């Protein structure tokens, strides 16, 4: 689908790259947000990833692999963006939660808060694996390919991340209603 645009963009056609970016940018934003849990950081990471992609586009050998290639760049830009921001805001631990889409009421407010806290305690690399596996619905092998890491590493990160999130939900099931009201 993107092949013609990629080929033109590789030849230095900025308009083609702009069109290409607009076909993949929303998905990139969705991924970046879910890794970083902050819309501003995600926006910056996506912009950086697209600029890097433009700059490095001639190194992409197979135009049909543009999006997986871009997603790997995006993951790296997410890591970099988070680390950059961390330098300047070491004391800010809880970033604003932006909620665009809703989950059709599946999640209670408390579930969401517990998951959000647990998610933020994960490493960025663990978050990325979770997002690629469960949000993009990729297989473990595909996640490994897209992130450029071994399958075993994907499985390990996935196991630890999922266990941490499950634990947060299980812990959440134990507190009394009163403690939840206090949080609210």
């Amino acid at each position: 689908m993107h092949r013609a645009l990629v080929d033109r963009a590789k030849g230095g056609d900025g308009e083609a790259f702009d069109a290409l970016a607009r076909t993949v940018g929303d998905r990139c934003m969705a991924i970046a947000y879910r890794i970083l849990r902050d819309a501003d950081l995600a926006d910056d990471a996506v912009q950086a990833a697209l600029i890097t992609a433009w700059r490095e586009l001639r190194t992409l050998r197979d135009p049909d692999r543009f999006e997986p290639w871009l997603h790997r760049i995006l993951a790296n830009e997410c890591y970099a963006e988070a680390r950059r921001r961390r330098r300047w805001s070491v004391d800010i631990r809880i970033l604003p939660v932006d909620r665009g889409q809703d989950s059709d009421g599946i999640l209670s407010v408390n579930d969401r808060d517990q998951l959000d806290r647990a998610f933020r305690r994960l490493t960025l690399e663990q978050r990325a694996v979770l997002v690629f596996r469960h949000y993009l619905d990729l297989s473990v092998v595909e996640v490994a390919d897209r992130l450029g890491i071994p399958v075993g590493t994907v499985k390990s990160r996935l196991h630890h991340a999922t266990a941490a999130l499950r634990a947060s939900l299980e812990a959440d099931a134990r507190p009394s209603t009163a403690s939840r009201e206090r949080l609210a």
Partner: protein
Amino acid sequence: MTASRDPDGLIRAFLDEGPTDLADRSYDAVRSHIDRTRQRVVIGPWREPRMSNIARFAIAAAAVLVVAVVGYNFLPGGNGPGATGPSPSPSPTATPTPTPTAAPTGPFALLAGSVPAGTYVTHPFLAPNDSIGFQVTLPAGWEAGAPSAGREPVGVAPTAPGYAWPDGMSMGFLTITSLEGDPCDWKEPTDIEVGPTVDELVMALAANPGYETTVPADVTLGGFGGKRIDVQVPAGLDLATCDDGQFHVWAMGDGQTIYAQGPEGRFRLWVLDVQGSPVIVMTHDFPGTSSGDQAELQAVVDSIQIEP
């Protein structure tokens, strides 16, 4: 309360939440940025582990992206682009230089791939410099590399020891349009545009604090005068501290870039005035390159004749 809860379902629901649109202003910002950003070709065999040694060599020898080297035929009997087999050089007046090994053949059109010993001609540049030809005599055991199926080779290197650190070597033909202001932090837009003359280019190289250079010296090569200058990756520099572990030095006329193929890599440049424009013959080697190999490389350089 929790009996009917599906933790994995909740995790998926959690991940489904959140924005899914990139703002128009962000697209506009990207567009604005790319309009000011030159595309790079980052040459790196690590990005394509299935590439053959020939393709890998081409990357280093001329530091250009190699896409279609594999499958090229080489002389004699080659049928690559623009050639149907061994053919005389377009410059019958060119005088072959004595070769390091007996090779009473050529000059032939140089095609990408392994080449038997002999004298060859290549036209490595894009327009408007596409008429410039380089005649070069190669010993046995060398390979030529082209940036793409439609281009003639832009560089050569021995199959062994190859082009890369710690003991490899290569030679290429190029033009330079800009220098990296900081070769280690090359992803930052610190490009230094260079003037159109040999002196301006050499002065810019010598003035760049990002690497060590020799004092430019007058030189004649292939029938043309110019300057010779060595550019050296600083001793002790840990390339792992550079962007992507690479030390980028300059951009070429076709927008591609060259970077050192290992620690303490040395670029030796013959910056020649060919009809008013700086045209460069470049070698790349390392402290570990043997003196015998260096002598072979120098013999290849000395064999060069330039056809403007």
